[in-house]
């Protein structure tokens, strides 16, 4: 008994085989837990909608104000429009963003660089 007491008074701790097996099993179960992956096609849809705007603006000439109205109509406050490196509006910033860019020629064949940035969660 004295020897046992002497043994337990030493620094450190004793780990039984059962406890070790339990701990290993617990750790393995924690590792094996499936991680949640949120799958959505939101990015694809935003990209398609940005492409729609660029396609329509190239088919029908639009003023910057009209372009801004169209952007707000489709994306609300989350869409940001840049024309020739000039920012026309400030969008509500979110965690993620998708940007599309295109060059549209006007009636006098002047190039206009259009950039659309859409923020989303």
């Amino acid at each position, binding site marked *: 008994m004295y020897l046992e007491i002497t043994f337990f008074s030493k620094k450190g701790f004793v780990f039984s085989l059962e*406890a070790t097996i339990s701990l290993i099993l617990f750790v393995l179960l924690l590792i094996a837990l499936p991680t949640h992956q949120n799958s959505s096609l939101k990015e694809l849809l935003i990209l*398609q909608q940005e492409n*729609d705007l660029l396609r329509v603006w190239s088919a029908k000439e639009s003023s910057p104000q009209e372009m801004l109205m169209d952007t707000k109509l489709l994306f609300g406050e989350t869409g940001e429009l840049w024309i020739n490196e000039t920012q026309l509006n400030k969008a509500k910033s979110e965690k993620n963003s998708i940007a599309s860019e295109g060059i549209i020629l006007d009636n006098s064949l002047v190039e206009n660089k259009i950039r659309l940035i859409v923020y989303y969660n």
Partner: protein
Amino acid sequence: MNIINKLKQHPNSWTKFLAGNGSRKPKLFAWTYFKHINSKGIIFSLDAGISFSITLVTVLLFATFLAQTASSTQNEIKNFELEEKAILIADSLVKNYDENNSLLGTCILDIEKKRIRTNEISFSNLINLKPISFGEIYVESITVKTNSFQKTFQIEEKVSNDCISVRRFALIEGEKGIIEVKTCTLK
């Protein structure tokens, strides 16, 4: 005096109990004390019991978590399928031309250039809308919205609370507008 003798003198000493209180012949041997080991049955120590309980609780928690994950994944797959079909139909609507079913394409066909004018929709093409379904998923309605007009084309009238709307931007009869495809599932 050695340590064993010290322990023997203690009133509650087990060595005293085994050694027979200092007598020459011990009253009780260790084999007698632990003889039940040879009998049938199992020995279950306290730490083994606790360990077993912890393992069981962990397995229970894991099983519960798996069941919840399976349930949420099933819902996610269902929503993903619905979203996929809605996006697919909406994209086909504004990018293709189909004379048999306008739901698969309502764009203007440029015969001279022999090509489809994507994102340019003819209102007259929208009259030939026929129902289309992918299993339990179907297109309920299409809404066309511009500054001058708004019209909803009801394609199927089924009762479902699980619907999704996809909005696309297009030129509708030369006017900028939104075309909204509402897709539902019966599941």
